[in-house]
């Protein structure tokens, strides 16, 4: 039986390889005159943020939680397992989402 620490070790191995690979890439600190425009896309405008709803990330977190919760609940229903654990799990997810910082 594989333990959680074994899984963590595999993840560490993968992350190490990709971190090394990433830092092998070029950084080239000296820039050409043409490369000094503020945006990669070459548009000349001041840095700005459009009105953006941070709530999107909140919704995304909710839907990610939903995704895992749905499998958890469906499986518990099908197998006739006590629903207490999935209910507790979902309740914890909802509480953590309610407590998450809002806009």
């Amino acid at each position: 039986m594989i333990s959680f620490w074994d899984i963590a070790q595999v993840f560490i191995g993968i992350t190490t390889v990709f971190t090394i690979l990433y830092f092998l890439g070029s950084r080239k600190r000296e820039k050409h005159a043409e490369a000094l425009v503020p945006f990669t896309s070459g548009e000349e405008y001041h840095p700005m943020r459009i009105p953006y709803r941070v709530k999107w990330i909140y919704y995304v977190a909710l839907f990610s939680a939903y995704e895992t919760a749905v499998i958890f609940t469906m499986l518990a229903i099908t197998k006739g397992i006590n629903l207490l654990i999935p209910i507790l799990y979902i309740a914890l997810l909802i509480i953590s989402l309610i407590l998450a910082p809002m806009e």
Partner: protein
Amino acid sequence: MWLIVYGAVLAVVFMFFSFVLEWGERKLVAKVQNRVGPYFTGPRGILQPLADFLKLMSKEEINPIGSDSLLLTIIPILMVSLSTFVLMFIPIFTPTPILSYPADLIYIIGLSASIGAMIILTGYVNPGPYSNIGAARFGELFISFEIPFAISVAIPAILSESATILDIVMFQTANLPIMVYAPLGFLIMLISLIAKVERVPFDIGEAETEIAGGWQVELSGRRLAFYRLSMNIETLFTAVLCVALYMGGGYGPFINVLGPAMYFVWFSVKLFIVLLIISVIEGIMARLRIDQVLSIFWRYLVPLAFLQLFIVLVGKFTLIF
């Protein structure tokens, strides 16, 4: 310690596997569109994705004013690592996956969903309007496809009464592939996975002709290389997940006669079929409008997913399945 080395070796293997997959997909799309596709680098252009990756890695990295450089360094590494990590739980090369843990399907679905959140974060930490709009568009897409996708993933788990991928694949060896019991679920999963990896017709987050690449527009050099690599590996992940959950993994006729190597051959054949479907759709369709995408998922796929779920639950409780 050896597990760290094992993970490192497999990361490289999956990276090259994803390059081959990208080459195959580009060739298929080119064939559909009556083009040649990658041709010059390596035999029949097979090394073109690797050449593209190396080219981007060697290019200058530009930090837009006001962007969060630290996050833009961490996110691409984490995205590639997570997309590779979730592949370890799916039996691709042999009947036993590299990693298996009770209810691992729940972990990997949660992890793959976090990749979507990272895409939105990438668009947000770059201060350009195009990337902000791209991230918001992807957010809309994300919450649209997640419900049908989650239900289509739950259906095999319900039928096999297990949330472990290995058990779901083994269930299909003793019975028929789950796509026979739940064809609608298979169809919904295919459509959702195209949206998950932002391929045509669901590429509203990138939309090159409208928002110049969306959340990717401010990325360059090794960051862009890593984001593209992570999208390739995620495409591989979604396709192999579809094969494992609905098409019976690598099991097929003559597997007992021709030996364990036949498992990988069958898996590759099924993977090719999934890729062929994705490529044909990508080749013949144009990008849908945002309202059309939302309409497809919320008006049609969500009710159909619930219908399929209802059919499966009724079949399960009445012992038809």
